């Protein structure tokens, strides 16, 4: 049992627990599961700047910030106490592709490659693209789309909302473009 808890969990354990979050939040307080809204509440609290979009009663939405605080705590718990240091076992095609980006085998001991997400990479071109531009597009894009993978892809699709299916298809399309076209091009450029 301890061994199972410390190993990476299979999709058929993780997915259903994730799905149960939706009815759980509805039962606790009529809350519709979505995480990207928390980014908006942070803006509304910290820098509303007289913009209409941030001028609302964010105190009603505090539950969302409590939830993401829990997400951070949960990640701390899982990483510190429920981890056996087993490397991430990706498929062979992925492994070969990433080796071409200079990602070495020992980097798989962590969930993110140090050669891209290490602190020393923040102020390099890798940091500019993978952290800054990537983060900006996640924030701008999810708010423009009205939700992210939780609000649209899980809650929205589970409630059979057509706009959420459209949004999810576009999330996937963007991800394929970046992975198949943009990232290989970036590494070719970094290498020069």
């Amino acid at each position, binding site marked *: 049992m301890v061994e199972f808890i410390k190993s990476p969990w299979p999709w058929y354990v993780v997915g259903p627990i994730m799905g149960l979050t939706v009815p759980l939040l509805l039962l606790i307080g009529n809350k519709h599961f979505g995480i990207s809204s928390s980014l908006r509440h942070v803006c509304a609290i910290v820098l509303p700047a007289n913009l209409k979009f941030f001028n609302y009663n964010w105190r009603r939405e505090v539950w969302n910030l409590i939830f993401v605080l829990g997400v951070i705590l949960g990640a701390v718990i899982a990483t510190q106490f429920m981890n056996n240091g087993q490397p991430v076992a990706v498929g062979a095609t992925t492994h070969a592709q990433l080796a071409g980006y200079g990602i070495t085998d020992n980097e798989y001991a962590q969930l993110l490659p140090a050669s891209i997400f290490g602190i020393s990479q923040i102020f390099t071109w890798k940091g500019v693209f993978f952290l800054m531009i990537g983060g900006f597009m996640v*924030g701008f894009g999810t708010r423009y789309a009205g939700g992210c993978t939780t609000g649209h892809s899980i809650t929205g699709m589970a409630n059979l909302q057509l706009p959420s299916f459209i949004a999810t298809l576009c999330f996937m399309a963007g991800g394929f473009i970046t992975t198949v076209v943009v990232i290989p091009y970036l590494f070719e450029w970094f290498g020069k």
Partner: protein
Amino acid sequence: MENLQNKYSVDENVVTWDHAAVAEKTLKPTNGESTGKVAGYLLAGILFGIILVKGEIISWYRIQEMFLLDSFHMYGIIGSAVFVAAIGIQIIKSTKTKTFDGQPIIFYKKIFSWGQIIGGTMFGLGWALTGACPGPLYAQFGSGFMAAGVSLFFAIAGTWFYGLLRDKLPH
């Protein structure tokens, strides 16, 4: 908010992409959250954070693998999550289950917006770069990757710039 009035009808429990604005109009005012609810949201968040890490959903490697169609892992997670959530929603709807404190549960209808296409694609482009959607951004940070704090900061900045440019964008 005024210019959004024609985008949704509060009477029919219809909501668009502007959840906070509509929640303000549809849900009964509360005098803050009770301690029990706060504990509930926090525990639900902790559980979610744990599965994001244990399922390796916060892993940039897993996101690359998903978009290279090299593993069923992420598709299995999203598919089974939607399936279980859909059953939960159907049970709540058909049995008219109320919240733990006896309020009727309200569902919203989402309305099409060009944002779902333009913003959705933009998010997807960023998702494969950071290896994280918003939930995993928080969890990457909690998992000890300080650089994810930079992604998170820029995600907040991106949200702010959307708020700034919103009236000029097609919806």
